[in-house]
């Protein structure tokens, strides 16, 4: 069964208050060296059959993310 992970992240220039807050929390909990943090979504999809790559790409771009403010990447696990 193929498994796909689509990761959706805020674009670099877009405000990510969640990332900023998370960086602060990590520092507060005593972890040294934390720089910039961004928080996005990880979407794990199990497929019953190998998905059509072009269609998957389309769905990731238009449905799973909003290209106005987010980037995405697709990873296919064996």
């Amino acid at each position, binding site marked *: 069964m193929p498994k796909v992970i689509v990761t959706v992240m805020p674009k670099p220039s877009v405000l990510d*208050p969640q990332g900023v807050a998370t960086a602060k929390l990590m520092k507060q909990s005593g972890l040294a060296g934390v720089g910039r943090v961004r928080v996005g979504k990880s979407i794990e999809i199990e497929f019953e059959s190998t998905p059509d790559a072009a269609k998957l790409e389309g769905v990731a771009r238009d449905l799973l993310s909003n290209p106005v403010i987010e980037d995405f990447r697709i990873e296919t696990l064996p």
Partner: protein
Amino acid sequence: MKVGVVRFPGSNCDQDCVVALSQFPGMSAEILWHKEDTVAGFDAIILPGGFSYGDYLRCGVSARFSPVMGAVKDFAAAGGPVLGVCNGFQILCESGLLPGALVRNRDLRFICEHTHLRVERTDTPFTRAASSGQILRIPIAHGEGCYFADNDTLRDLREHGQVLLRYSDERGYLSQETNPNGSRDNIAGICNRERNVFGLMPHPERACDPLLGSTDGRVIFQSLLS
């Protein structure tokens, strides 16, 4: 009785709690700033609703680093009554003062509406003025109020009588239809084993004035007083 209502950055029901509490003779309420590191002088503490620290990463998680929470933990450990409403309940779970967690509502949407609650236990400082099985009409307003705990924890909660409120219909029946957010076991509010820390998602402070359609929330604060 002097009640401290904690104001975290992002709290937004703090003032509402003060307004509601000040209607009770014998009760006074004061705002407690999150940067305070003591709660000395207070007889009870309320963690109010809102979005503490923006509720980023997870609801209620950031409060664990606030100075006041250290003091609240000590206060609770010494047996002082602590009431967490909505975001306050989330904070209590994230800080380990109550078991379980609150996750996104079943239908993924924020829900603001009146609900009916069945009082399950009256042997606590928060419900002793109620009668067992009493039905309260109190509103909820949350996006992440679905109570989750694993099976062992749930069994534990039941065995020790820690479930204080369940979402029901107006006659006290429980079903998935009367469960607004998908909480396990229709749980709306639980206490710790020592019974002095109570968290609930509904907002009793919004049900204290007849002009707002219900005064059923008063019984919670009345209990604290008696």
